[in-house]
Structures are given as C-alpha cells and as structure tokens.
C-alpha cells in the first residue's frame, strides 16, 4: 500500500513528517555545531565516546533524507526501515545520555527522556504503518 495521506492513520499524518523534521534539525545542528556548544556540553561526552558528534549528525541527516524521500515517493517500505533505524538511533542516544547522569556532574536525570519518547513514538508509528500495509 502506498505511503500517502489516504493510506495512513491521522496520527501518522502528523508524526511521519515530524520525525523527518526532527532528524533534520538534529542532524544539521550536530554536523554544524554552531559556536561549538554541543562539543562543550558535558552531557554529550558519553555520546561522543560512542561515536563523534559529526557521525551522530550524519546518522540523523541520513534518516531525515530517507524519510523525506519515502514520503515524497510514497514508498512505505523505505519509511518502515528508516523508522526501525530511527528507533535504534534514538534508543542508543537515550542510553548514552543517561550514562552521562552517572559519569558527569550536573547532568539532569531526564536528559535521555527525549530519546526514549522519540524511540517509543517511532515504534508506535512503525506498528501503525505495518498494520496498514
């Protein structure tokens, strides 16, 4: 079934472009890192230990590109695969940020919350997309 407005749930109509936009914003910010603010953030030290911030940015840009291409070409399977990788990426992101809570001073306990939220929402969207297929 094609990936267009007539063949996705109302929730997916909102969330699918949102994931692409979120990944695009994160990707651009992490690749460009204006004023090197991210590089100096203590909460991101474990994330940098896992892989450089540029790589995180490229991962998100790749996901944003794949999702946008899937939305434009209406290929559901591409978006499903991108969502699966999105879940893994944001899940790992949440874990490495939570590691910073214990390894870095003055880091909020909720620092990994956004990663968890995006991963769980992506999982819900993935199930929705597969159920509609």
């Amino acid at each position: 079934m094609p990936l267009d407005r007539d063949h996705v749930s109302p929730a997916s109509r909102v969330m699918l472009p949102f994931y692409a936009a979120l990944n695009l914003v994160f990707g651009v910010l992490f690749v460009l890192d204006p004023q090197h603010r991210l590089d100096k953030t203590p909460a991101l030290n474990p994330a940098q230990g896992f892989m450089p911030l540029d790589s995180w940015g490229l991962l998100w840009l790749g996901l944003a590109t794949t999702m946008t291409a899937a939305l434009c070409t209406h290929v559901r399977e591409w978006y499903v695969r991108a969502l699966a990788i999105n879940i893994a990426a944001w899940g790992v992101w949440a874990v490495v940020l939570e590691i910073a809570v214990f390894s870095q001073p003055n880091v909020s306990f909720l620092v990994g919350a956004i990663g968890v939220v995006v991963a769980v929402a992506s999982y819900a969207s993935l199930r929705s997309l597969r159920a509609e297929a």
Partner: protein
Amino acid sequence: MDWLNALQGTLAVALVVTTGLLGLQQGTVRTLRESNSDLRARRDDQDKYVAEVEVKLSTSNAENEVLRSVVTGEAHLTALADRLEDHHTESMSALADIRSAIEHHGGTHGS
C-alpha cells in the same frame, strides 16, 4: 587521529543501522509466526466446518432418497388411476353398446 574518528563513527553508525534493521526483521518474523498460527487455526475451523457439512450432506442424501421413492410411488398410483379411469370409460361405452345390441335384438325377435 581523524581517520580513527571516522572509522569509529562509521562502525557505530553501522552498528545502529544493523540493530534497527535486525529489530525490524525480528518483528517481521514474529508477525509471520502470528499470522501462521492464525491461518492454522482458521484451517482447523474450516476442516471442522467441512466435516459438519459432509455429515449434513449425507443425511440430506438419505432423506432425499426416501422422498424420491415416495414421489415415484405416487406417480405410479396416478398412472394406475388414469389407466383405471380409461378402462372404466371404455367398459361403460362397451356396456352401452351391448345394451343397445340386446335391445335391438330383443325387439326384432319379439316381432
């Protein structure tokens, strides 16, 4: 040092991508197993239904056989009644002819 960072980044991205795709495959396999179980249950239900229908069909065939024999017997009776009616008509006609002949013969003999 830069290429080491690039290598580390590439490997980490590959790890994340592989993890995501493996999770997707696992979900696909689980979905296929569930649908397989559903289809098996549905097939079992269909088999039960077919067995019930076969029993009903054999019962209906037996009843049909009985009814057919009844209908055939009724047809024979009707045919028999028709023939009886024909014979009765012919007999009455012959009787009328005989009476007429006797009367005619008696009248001639008397004069």
